[in-house]
């Protein structure tokens, strides 16, 4: 019985995927998820190794957060590994401790012009989370906060009562802890 319980438990995993930076590669990854009904909770991608004299191809790193049963997570990894332009797939969640960070830009707008008391609350919370002010006006701020997903969620929850929010988040990028690399 416990076995069945475990088999059906939904796990959340953070995957690091190194791909050849060529046209269509992201579509292949996303198409795989859409076509087979897997979840994507967040996905970030950028080139991390440029094609030059030493490297014949450029490489991009995709950090992907997904969820599913253990069997589904295994399927996701082996299906990804099957794609021709994919060089490496690492399950950071499974392989040990890792650090994950995401960047959020948060605009907060005062309800009826600038209210000084609220401005003070907003700034105090921002300071507590290490958020930087990158824009401000009489009735608004834009903060930049770089933190774990959970911390960003907390930050937003605390700000929510203090004004109208507009949020842009990157989704997480992640690296394993310690000297090991992908």
């Amino acid at each position, binding site marked *: 019985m416990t076995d069945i319980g475990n088999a059906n438990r939904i796990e959340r995993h953070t995957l690091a995927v190194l791909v050849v930076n060529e046209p269509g590669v992201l*579509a292949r990854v996303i198409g795989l998820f859409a076509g087979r009904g897997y979840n994507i909770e967040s996905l970030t991608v950028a080139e991390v190794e440029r094609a030059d004299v030493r490297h014949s191809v450029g490489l991009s790193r995709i950090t992907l957060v997904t969820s599913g049963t253990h069997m589904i997570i295994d399927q996701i990894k082996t299906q990804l590994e099957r794609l021709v332009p994919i060089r490496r797939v690492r399950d950071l969640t499974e392989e040990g401790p890792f650090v994950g960070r995401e960047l959020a830009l948060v605009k907060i707008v005062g309800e009826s012009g600038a209210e000084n008391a609220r401005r003070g609350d907003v700034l105090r919370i921002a300071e507590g989370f290490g958020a930087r002010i990158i824009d401000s006006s009489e009735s608004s701020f834009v903060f930049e906060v770089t933190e774990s997903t959970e911390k960003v969620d907390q930050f937003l929850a605390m700000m929510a009562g203090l004004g109208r929010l507009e949020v842009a988040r990157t989704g997480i990028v992640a690296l394993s802890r310690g000297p090991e690399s992908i």
Partner: protein
Amino acid sequence: MSEQQMSGAEMVLAALADNGVEIVFGYPGGAVLPIYDAMFQQERIRHVLVRQEGGAVHAAEGYARSTGRVGCVLVTSGPGATNAVTGLLDAQMDSIPLVCITGQVPTHLIGNDAFQEADTTGITRPCTKHNYLVKDVEKLAETLHEAFHVARSGRPGPVLVDLPKDIQFATGTYRTPDEFDFSYRPAYEPDMTQIVRAIEMIAKAERPLFYTGGGVINSGPQASEALTELVRLTGIPCTSTLMGLGAFPASDPQFLGMLGMHGTYEANLATHGCDLLVCVGARFDDRVTGKVSAFSPGSRKIHIDIDASSINKNVRVDLPVVGDAGRALAMMLEVWKEQGHECRARALAPWWKQIDAWRAVDCLAYEQGDSVIKPQYALERLREALKGRDNVYITTEVGQHQMWAAQFLPFDKPNHWMTSGGLGTMGYGLPAAVGVQMAHPGAIVIDVAGEASILMNIQEMSTAVQYRLPVKIFIMNNKWMGMVRQWQELLHGGRFSESYTAALPDFVKLADAFGGTGLRAETVADLDEAIAKMLSTPGPVILDVAVDETEMCFPMIPGGAAHNEIMLRRQDQTKSDPTAREEGMVLV
């Protein structure tokens, strides 16, 4: 090793030749004219002009499947490419190595909704193993060579190269395949410790069963030889998927027939009752497993597959072995011999006794009267007529006739059975037969067909006539889409919605109109003579055999049922009413 300046179109021909291609199946059009022009001026590559692009892909599949080589397709942009899509997915599902070259509008028009433009790489991304859009003539040679490398490496599959017309005209440097080193390197070599564990499990099992699939055939003839030796050496029964037929000789007493939805009683009950299931190059597909939660419930499972994503996809296994089926089988043989195991036949006597009892049920039995031809009888007579002939290749369309062909025709060698398994593409058989016959000019190539399927690609009859290909089309004509009718009778209250074809052509006249020969058999008395005439008549022949309109294909495991709930005849319907099972209703 060489380096040469030439046009993109010439590079295509050079790359095909350098990758061992002798025959291309294709259809010209605006966006591939430079390639056709280059083709006109060379003699290394032969071109087979099909009548519709879908036919080209199935023909290349037939060619590939019967030779073990990469099949090659050349079609134009837009509708040429979209017509090829079904065949590409068919090849993807059945792991057939193909390279399909599609023309594309010139690079500066891409994205403009230009005439005959389609987002070919976008459309084919999920139905190819990999695809490329070439935008630089200097990358063309490498891309083409890599396409062949990817198509045939690891788990084989179709690869598409989309080639804009301006790139075909542009001049660039051609380099031969040996100058490139491709990063795509799937693992072939199984882990020895896993192999040793597999042998340990096999040596101890009391009710073991081999379950083998198309992966054994894809691995090459030596894999089928190794399988045959291992099965005989161990004394263990063997069953096969639809795609795997021929890897182990069907005439061998250790063969239980095909398993799955229309598999034999003994194969399915053995799968259900075994204590060790050794899966080699098959993928626990839903047509094989039936209800997954009730599939082979008492067995430990070994799964050998070159594609790691096939393992634990549908059914959890106890011992996964990732690698080439042929290598794994050879290593298993080696370990079995090295450890000095004896043949298990005697130790497995109770298991064999049980299997013999299941066999005694005679699950493929049918009643042949003196007039109306039963489809099973038609195939038995065909089998009889082919007895002693060595060089026989069978292709099929999709439906009842396909399952009966799998049940009644003897497949003793790999690469002699071409059928659309995973995708179930009606219209596969005739073009596939064209491809097979191109590869094996002296062989007997028979497309076992239904009257509905054959109409889906009947235009390829014209191709067969043009290239003087003596393909034999054996139509089992019951006037119904037989499998659809069967499901409607069993699962939809006998409401035969749109499954009857009211205006079938006269197939004898049709064959004649194409320039082939048409024959007909109406009754049991006509059959043998008609078959003999079909085989002795030169050129393409259609034999239209009128068969019992309401015959159903048994055994049958209804969708959503377990293997031990197998139906043997119509009357079993009441015993396990499939309409009562909601899960079964929604399955296809």
